[in-house]
């Protein structure tokens, strides 16, 4: 039977679609702005009104990864022709690549190192938070734990304090124990930060898995650990994926502690990117290129896990 819609319903429907559309524009504009600026030559990055149609260029990305200096006089044709394409792009913008005086090697900018730090720290801390969280949640879900509710509340309460409040004492402690500006330092910090979240979300998911499945495996001759790996983990995959995405996003985007706890060796991308605004006239298209690349991992990670996430977002509803 065809559904008959009243005029009122039709109007409401259209209004809802329009509202979603407006919301989308509001949310996607900054992303569009970053992405388009990242492909603009420097001269077009700050025009007013903004340039909408332009020939995209990779110059900002070429610049992003190397140290450069302003050229006083144009480069001679012979050097220009001998240079690789990305170096020519930089020459075109009136800058030259800084090279080591003796070896002639190019000097990289700090971007790639910071990016690598971000990846290492986010991935490891996410892995730790999710795996520890899953095991803890399993324990709370399946065994009688004395004072279970108090423990769970305590775990949650670690998130009630705004992290910035403890920033100074943390800074001093990290200095004292030598964790300042180390990868390990940030990994510990982010793991601790995400753990409570991970425990709570995973407990919800594991509670939903009928314990009969594991118990059947136990009776069938499997050990508790084998039953956990063979039965619980596959069933909890959706929850694990959802939790991992959240933890990764939080670790990847974290700014305040990264700014305070690191300066060179273990610095992540978030505090580094704005620091490049500092000297001279900011090169907005290079900053946009840095920000654009920074957006990619979260987007890719989320995209890869999208099937799990869609089901995972309806927390716990794993079975049809």
């Amino acid at each position, binding site marked *: 039977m065809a559904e008959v819609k009243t005029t009122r319903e039709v109007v409401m429907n259209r209004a809802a679609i329009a509202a979603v559309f407006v919301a989308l524009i509001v949310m996607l504009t900054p992303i569009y702005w970053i992405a388009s600026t990242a492909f603009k030559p420097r001269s077009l990055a700050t025009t007013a009104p903004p340039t909408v149609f332009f020939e995209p260029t990779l110059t900002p990305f070429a610049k992003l990864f190397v140290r450069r200096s302003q050229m006083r006089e144009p480069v001679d044709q012979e050097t220009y022709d001998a240079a690789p394409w990305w170096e020519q792009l930089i020459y075109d913008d009136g800058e030259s690549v800084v090279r080591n005086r003796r070896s002639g090697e190019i000097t990289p900018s700090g971007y790639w190192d910071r990016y690598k730090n971000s990846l290492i720290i986010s991935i490891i801390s996410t892995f730790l938070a999710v795996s520890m969280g899953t095991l803890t949640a399993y324990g709370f879900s399946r065994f009688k734990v004395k004072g279970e509710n108090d423990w769970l509340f305590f775990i949650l309460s670690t998130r009630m304090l705004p992290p910035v409040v403890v920033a100074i004492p943390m800074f001093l402690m990290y200095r004292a124990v030598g964790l300042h500006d180390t990868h390990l330092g940030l990994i510990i910090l982010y793991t601790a930060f995400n753990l409570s979240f991970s425990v709570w979300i995973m407990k919800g998911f594991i509670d939903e898995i*009928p314990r009969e499945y594991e*118990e059947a*495996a*136990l009776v069938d*001759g499997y*050990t508790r650990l*084998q039953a956990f790996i063979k039965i619980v983990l596959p069933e909890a995959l959706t929850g694990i994926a959802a939790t991992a995405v959240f933890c990764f996003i939080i670790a990847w985007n974290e700014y305040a502690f990264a700014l305070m706890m690191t300066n060179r060796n273990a610095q992540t991308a978030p505090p580094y990117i704005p620091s490049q605004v500092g000297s001279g006239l900011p090169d907005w298209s290079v900053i946009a290129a840095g920000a654009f690349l920074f957006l990619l991992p979260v987007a890719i990670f989320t995209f890869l896990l999208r099937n799990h996430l869609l089901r995972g977002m309806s927390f716990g509803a794993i079975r049809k």
Partner: protein
Amino acid sequence: MARVEFKNVTKRFGGTRALKDLTLTVEDGEFFVLLGRTGAGKTTALRSIAGLEKPEEGSVLIDGVDVGDWTAAERDVALVLQQYSLYPRLTVRGNLEFPLRPKGRRMSEDEIARRVERAANTLQITHLLDRKVERLSGGEMQRVSIGRAIVREPRVFLMDEPLSALDAKLRESLRVELKALHHELGATFLFVTHDQVEAMSMGDKIGVLRSGRLVQVGTPSDIYERPANTFVARSVGSPPMNLIEGTLSGSAANLNGISLPVAIGMAGGAGPLTFGVRPEAMVLEQGAPGEARVFDIEDQGVIKILSLDFGETRLHATVPAGTHVKRDEIVRFGWKPEKVLTFDRNTGRNLAFA
């Protein structure tokens, strides 16, 4: 194959005692049915044997050995549940192989294939082997669950209401198959149910459980004909046993002003009694002492089941299908004296049990 024993087992969950001083023996090769209502402790009893619950007191023995400290894996029993006993991610074959694949078992692939094949043949699920579990009907699922239990050739089969989620037809045919399977394997079965028809039709022996306590153990006919108390009398039989309050004087029962004969030497005494008589031991005939009003008639083809109002008491009587009665008709009834039981009205105990 094995004998299973409970010795004074008590299991607590916080304030509630799910099993109270339970003592019970299931003999080797027996089909034992534990009958009880929801919450009676049936599941808890099974889980205690499987090693999924640890009783606070008493011990569970398998073949005379106290298995209190054994893990579930070591006990070598199989458990079939009402639901959730198949892994949704695996195919039927995967599910049947699963119990054969724990690291400790070290079974060869040939042996695994052979056993799966045989179990599938026995249960007629060979055509389902490569199907995903979620595509099975309820009856097929329970067949596979039973298959999962038999591939391992365990010492004891524990079944927790495996048929109660199925529709009546299927339940009946699986009942027959399970009995046949038991016969073929000769293994010890402990089967749990709240359905008295299931219990009566399947059990070699029945144990009636009430609030964690064992009320009576016996063969189906023991339980049916000599219930230990009014609880058991009401629990088995459909319609249940008629229970009528009255007193005994000599060889006559005084019920609400009428007098019916009882067997000579009937246990009773002078105190308040409850008389018990099965519907099929009720007799409707002209001139019988009792008088009742027909409340309802259920025609079952071969017989009719009448509901009768005798004063405040609702009675049931089964009569041949040819009997002509109408609703609200007044009929006269008696009973077969040798079939009458007497219970203590206060304790409910069957007075024939010394």
